[in-house]
């Protein structure tokens, strides 16, 4: 390339950019693509569903077409008592998570087991299915896989939901949508760091902990505590209720916004929520006119607040 030899320059530019993309995109993709999903990754994606952001099935981020997570101790088909089991219920036309829809996400051993022992390839989105995460030992190593219990045990999605009580249902998939839509991750990270801060916020994740999940919503600007393991630190629904409705009720110095609007129009008892009256009463309490703050309504089972709390509490 001499003075004003632009053809040579253009080729050198292509070579430089191409090499850069080869090193930064292609080479790491080999390493990241070869990592097997952990049990945690399977639990996460089964709970969250296909996408945690904008998608065809949920274009307005309302939490439509998301799985329901249920903790059951009865066989939904026979009614016989079983070991406490966490099942992920995909009702008809709820898209399956990426580990089931796409190959090369779970890792070779887990993918093979999920097909042979777990029968996941027999699951059909148009009818729905119920999944659980299992582990088995292969060559002395524990390998997690996904089991389609609709195929193996005949648990129908509707029956599985029916045998669980309301408090055993977690709307984690819808809750993740709320977490993303409401921008929780602008302040609360989902990534304990590799250095010191993890004594406080828990163990940092492993590479395979996210296979199949999208978006990971790590966040980058931590203005508030990391939430990756928040469910292990604090699993009180009462506290969460107060905190989401008005964080200053439980933490006077919090700078978190109020998320009272996620309660919707009616509370858990079907009573309309009078926000104006609540705020007036709260202002009286804050200015010292009254001794006690107003009661915080319980969120309805189909409210967005309930789903968000389910999501948060299940971040273990």
């Amino acid at each position, binding site marked *: 390339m001499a003075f*004003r030899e632009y053809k040579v320059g253009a080729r050198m530019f292509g070579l430089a950019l191409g090499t850069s993309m080869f090193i930064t995109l292609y080479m790491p993709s080999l390493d990241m693509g070869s990592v097997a999903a952990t049990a945690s990754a399977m639990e996460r994606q089964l709970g969250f569903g296909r996408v945690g952001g904008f998608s065809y099935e949920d274009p307005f981020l309302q939490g439509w077409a998301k799985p329901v997570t249920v903790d059951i101790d009865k066989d939904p088909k026979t009614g016989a008592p079983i070991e406490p089991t966490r099942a992920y219920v995909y009702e008809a036309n709820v898209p399956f998570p990426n580990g089931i829809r*796409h190959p090369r996400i779970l890792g070779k051993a887990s993918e093979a087991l999920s097909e042979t022992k777990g029968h996941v390839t027999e699951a059909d989105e148009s009818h729905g299915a119920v999944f659980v995460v299992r582990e088995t030992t292969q060559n002395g190593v524990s390998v997690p896989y996904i089991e389609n219990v609709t195929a193996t045990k005949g648990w129908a999605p509707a029956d599985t939901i029916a045998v669980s009580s309301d408090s055993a249902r977690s709307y984690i998939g819808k809750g993740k949508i709320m977490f993303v839509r409401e921008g929780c991750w602008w302040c609360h990270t989902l990534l304990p760091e590799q*250095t010191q801060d993890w004594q406080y916020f828990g163990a940092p994740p*492993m590479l395979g902990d996210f296979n199949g999940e999208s978006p*990971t919503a790590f966040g980058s600007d931590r203005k508030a505590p990391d939430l990756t393991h928040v469910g292990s630190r604090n699993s009180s629904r009462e506290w969460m209720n107060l905190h989401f409705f008005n964080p200053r009720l439980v933490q006077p110095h919090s*700078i978190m916004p109020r998320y009272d609007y996620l309660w919707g129009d009616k509370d858990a008892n079907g009573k309309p929520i009078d926000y104006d009256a609540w705020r007036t009463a709260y202002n009286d309490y804050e200015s010292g006119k009254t001794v006690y703050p107003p009661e915080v309504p319980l969120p309805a089972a189909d409210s967005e607040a309930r789903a968000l709390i389910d999501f948060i509490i299940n971040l273990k």
Partner: protein
Amino acid sequence: MFKYLFAKAEDIPAGSAAVYFGFSSIVWFVIGTGIGSFNAAKLAFPDFVTGSEILSFGHMRQVHVLAVILGWISMAFAMAMMYITPALGNTKLWSEKLGVWNCLLWNVGLSLGLFLLWLGITSGREYSDLPWFIDLVVVFGLLLPLGINVWMTIKTRRTQGIYTTNWFFGAATFMVIIVFLVGNAPEFFQLTGLTEAYMTWWFAHNVLGLWITPVAAAISYYIVPKVTGNPLYSHRIGHLHFWSVVVFYSTPAAHHLMSAPLPEWLKSFASVEGVLILVPAIAFVSNLLLTMTGKWRMFVENIEIKFTITGVMMAIPLNLQGGFQQTRAINWYIHGTGWIVAHAHLALLGFSTFLEAAAVYYGLQTLLRRKLYSLGLANFHFWMLLIGFSTYWISMTIAGLIQGAGKIYEVPYIDVVIAEHPYMIARWVGGTMVFLGNCVWLFNMWKTARAGTVIPAGRLPHELAYER
């Protein structure tokens, strides 16, 4: 503007597209910084405008970020490209009509995208928050038409040579399209897990490194020689700058995830490359400051040079921060704290905004053939930006160091929040100063278009005296 959409090409006055882009960019700057000031108020006073979903922080934050990046900065870039590229080729813009359409599409597409984001319709990926169909609008409605205009103008130039600024313009428009298409691949192709997280930061890093930084630098490569009348100090350093941007700025994406479980070799690679962004920075700053030789009076007297050189000087702390804060040695302390927020604003509101403001000041005067309405207001704008930004940067840097200490010594988080509170108020004050300064700027430029002194043919705006 609308009358030119279907006009014959020869009926559209040269420079129309640049003027529309210029005013659009100022309006978006006012909107973007206004939302920024509103958001900062919420961080300082959490019960300021409360209980409304649409006005909550989580819905407004990304609107601020993208209004500033795609509205203010990128439209100012488009404006600069549409008058600088032809000027450097002694020719006209390849298609003024495409430029006018591009400006309309840009405003419409961006408004639509930001409206959806505002409602919470997001991909949940920082910086590439827009859902994938809006990403396609950005690529094919905003960036590709701009790129075609720039490439074709360079191709149909009436000089043999291409000036350094145009190397950057031509290459950066190409690279930003690649970055948008590849960086949003996780959404187009449903990539998941850490691949998705890494690609998110590959996008975020490269949209900064291959679009904002080089184009902002390229603008000053034009403004400084043009206004001072000095030749560019060195064509050779121009080579070093251009090639090091392509080579070193496109590679450190992984340094944004130093605390994630990415392969360690990728972090080592990215971290070394990350320090090497100092190579283009050193080349850029030395070339521009040496070009100023003998004309330093203009740093005080001339508003465009004042903005440009301030921006160039801000590249020094910007790149020292950017180069070193991503290394393992430092990143563990300040990662995820307000320090990074301060750094991001040093890049976009400090370094880059000052360079683009100069281009918009200079371009609008040249294209409208009107002298700037008021130097006093322009200086007021300059100082509001500089003092407002500095207040913001200093307060957020201190807040970041507090957060870092809190993180390392595992202080209960709420104590960090309490300790940060005064700096959150200072940040809001600084941001609001920037917003008010921009309102004044919009007024000044509007009056310039209406009531500025007419510049006689053959003269340049900075050769005329100010009347106010």
